[in-house]
């Protein structure tokens, strides 16, 4: 009995629930009433996986599905996005509980408790729906100018969910291009993407802070996590916007006003971090900009959010660790706090394993797909792993094997890093022996 329970590790629960949703989604999409034309099975699986992993790479244009099919896609996105958030909250809180003894010893009590998890899940779900509802109402008006009320309402809801869950899918033919000049519209989309990618811990703490401000309660400082997330996100947004603008001002942004150019760069930086709504035509970009985009996609959003990528905190820890090594210090420190060793190891291994997978997948794709050049394939893999799904439109022409590689990459991108975190969380087996040390020559 005990053995059986052990087999159901958090990582497995996560993986199997995703596989189950993808399978169910594929089945529903394959029903005749959900599509207008016949679509090969691999493309249905691809679409289902892409939605559930909130990636947004499409191999089949969404207009090929009926409204029923598009509603299924919407449900998949919602399930995929919110599912991950609650699951990760659930596991992370378990995980934090494990460290209770240490917490008490350190004289601190952490507030996540079993009884509170239910409250948190309810909060996440309700916040999500409220935000999506507000956004739908707002987005309804611009859509109303082009479509009938019913269609406009559906599109507004679809875009709100798609943006908030960082999927970046759009059922419209040209994506969001027709709205490129509607700054308030784009701003709302950007805001949705941003909130979706910042993570529930930050929502909670910022919410608390606002509450305390209005109640005139005692000032409470942010946790280390929130500080790191806010700082890293701020730096990435500022740097991404500035660099995109600098690189593209004489290229694709040549003909627009300064304000507009800055806004497009800003929107892109936010969107790239995991959603993948596009305002640029990738084909017209400078190669250096594409490399910049790759890096932004790879970093992604923050933990406990709808977004993918290696996450901002992982990057922050990694960079700080390098600085610590170079400065010959023993402890990795941020904002006057010490980072536990196991978290540093986790951050390093997430980065290394993800880079390893990117190269492996790129290599495999280059072997089977001969029609594309290196950067196209590389971009597609990073985009799939970081769940960004910026459309380079090359997945459509991939072979069966190529599509399978991309599907696996998306799945890994969605559950990979979290599973990896849980794997460590398995109680550490202490070995009763050490091998003797021996030096090797390095460098």
């Amino acid at each position, binding site marked *: 009995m005990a053995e059986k329970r052990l087999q159901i590790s958090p990582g497995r629960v996560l993986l199997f629930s995703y596989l189950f949703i993808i399978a169910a989604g594929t089945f529903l999409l394959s029903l005749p009433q959900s599509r207008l034309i016949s679509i090969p099975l691999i493309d249905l699986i691809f679409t289902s996986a892409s939605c559930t992993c909130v990636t947004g790479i499409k191999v089949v244009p969404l207009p090929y599905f009926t409204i029923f099919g598009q509603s299924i896609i919407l449900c998949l996105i919602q399930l995929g996005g919110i599912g991950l958030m609650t699951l990760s909250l659930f596991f992370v809180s378990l995980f934090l509980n494990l460290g209770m003894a240490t917490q008490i010893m350190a004289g601190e009590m952490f507030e996540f408790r079993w009884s509170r998890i239910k409250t948190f899940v309810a909060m996440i779900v309700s916040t999500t729906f409220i935000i999506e509802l507000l956004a739908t109402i707002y987005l309804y008006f611009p859509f109303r100018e082009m479509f009938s009320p019913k269609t406009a309402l559906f599109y507004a809801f679809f875009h709100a969910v798609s943006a908030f869950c960082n999927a970046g899918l759009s059922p419209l033919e040209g994506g969001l291009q027709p709205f490129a000049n509607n700054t308030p519209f784009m701003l709302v989309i950007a805001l949705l993407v941003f909130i979706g990618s910042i993570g529930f811990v930050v929502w909670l703490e910022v919410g608390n802070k606002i509450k305390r401000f209005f109640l005139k309660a005692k000032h409470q400082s942010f946790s280390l996590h929130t500080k790191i997330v806010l700082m890293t996100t701020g730096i990435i947004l500022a740097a991404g916007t500035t660099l995109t603008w600098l690189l593209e001002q004489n290229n694709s942004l040549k003909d627009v006003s300064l304000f507009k150019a800055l806004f497009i760069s800003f929107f892109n930086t936010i969107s790239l971090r995991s959603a993948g709504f596009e305002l640029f035509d990738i084909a017209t970009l400078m190669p250096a900009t594409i*490399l910049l985009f790759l890096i932004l996609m790879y970093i992604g959003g923050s933990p406990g959010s709808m977004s993918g990528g290696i*996450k901002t905190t992982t990057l922050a*820890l990694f960079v700080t660790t*390098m600085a610590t090594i170079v400065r010959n210090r023993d402890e990795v420190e941020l904002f006057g706090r*010490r980072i536990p060793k196991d978290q540093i190891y986790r951050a390093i291994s997430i980065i290394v394993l993800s880079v390893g997978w990117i190269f492996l997948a790129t290599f495999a794709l280059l072997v089977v797909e001969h029609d594309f*050049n290196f950067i196209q394939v590389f971009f597609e893999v990073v985009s799939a792993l970081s769940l960004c799904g910026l459309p380079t439109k090359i997945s459509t022409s991939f072979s069966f094997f190529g599509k399978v590689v991309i599907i696996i990459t998306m799945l890994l991108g969605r559950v990979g890093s979290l599973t990896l975190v849980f794997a460590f969380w*398995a109680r550490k087996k202490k070995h009763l022996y050490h091998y003797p040390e021996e030096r090797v*020559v390095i460098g």
Partner: protein
Amino acid sequence: MRKVAAQFSPGRIIVLSFLFIIATGAFLLSLPIARTVSIPFIDILFMAATSTCVAGLSTIPMTSFTPFGHVIITCLIQLGGLGLMTFSFFFISLFFDLGMTTQILAGKILDLRSWARVKRFLVIIFTTTFLIELAGALLLYMPLRQRFPAGKAAFYALFHSVSAFCNAGLDLLGDGVTSFQTRPLVLLIFAALIFSGGIGFFFWFELANKIKNRIITGAKSRFSLHAKITLSTTTSLILVCGIATWLLERNGSLGHLSNTHSFFVSIFHAVSIRSAGFQFFDLSQATFALLLLFVMLMYIGANSGSTGGGIKTTTFAVFVATIGAIVRNRDDVEFFGRSIPIGQVYNAIAIVVLSSMWIVFATFLLLITEQSLSFIQILFETVSAFGTCGLSTGITAQLSYLGKVIIITTMFVGRIGSLTMVLALSKTRKKALYKYPEERIAIG
């Protein structure tokens, strides 16, 4: 007085001496007797840097230099190759001394201690190098004699022997060793020279010691951990890359050769790609998958204490083992029944990360300065310069002025970067007298 000595840290000595050699080389090459045509200064500087850093990328054909120029280039390669080898030997043995107490505690004494012995080892390094290069030159003379008059063949043999042993990969033939594709023996000589230069003198010493012990006392001595890691990593890299090359290119770039010949070419090319960069076949037709594989091999490079570049096999092995240890939830990074000291693990991580960052940074800059080239060409060029490999997809000559400067810097960083970093990091750690409280964050 102490202050002056402190300013000349090992890292600085290495940087300054390489800069000095490159400057002198550039000056000599710019003399009218060294060249047949007029060459822009940046290209001369590039040539001097590529020879001294034993990279082997070149922006101008070797025919633009006179035989005198070729002799200077040979000297630069020799100085660059041997120089780094002796430097790293010298400083690392000093560095090992720092860890003396640990060594004694562990019941072992490393015997590179006194100055007297250092001198002896330097002599051994020099003589071995010259003997191997001489043997290589003699062997290469025969095949070259069939094409050139005696004097030219002799010089060419010497040049290529030095270039191969020092892992420079510069050649006077114009097309690498492509023209010897159907002569496995000639390829074998090249591969053997490259291999012995790239395996590192730490390994030579151990091997020599082992043989000596075996003959004199009959006692079997075991290889050190360093030698084991070096050997196993090198062998697996060469085999994997060789076989992958063969599988991918059998019907492509190597399609005109028989299966046996193409197999030999693939394996020997795998030896060459790790840091020498002699071209064994035409890369312009190679698949992207192969280029990506080559990028990784060039990045890993040769072994510590060798004439080759890159992050080095031991760094790579320690890095991979570290990730393995993290994933398997172990505390120690272990190899062959030994654990690696945590300081070295950190060094390995730092080298891998900082070098990757440099590569991404340099690629980014090159993408801005060279807009007509594709991403993989630029990535390949950058990594090739960093790994001092010198294989190119053929774009080196088209680089702009700034692009050349970036590549020169990258070669320089690739050549001395990791060693300087290890030296800088091996300073005694400053202990902070306070600790901040721990706090967890969510990751991943």
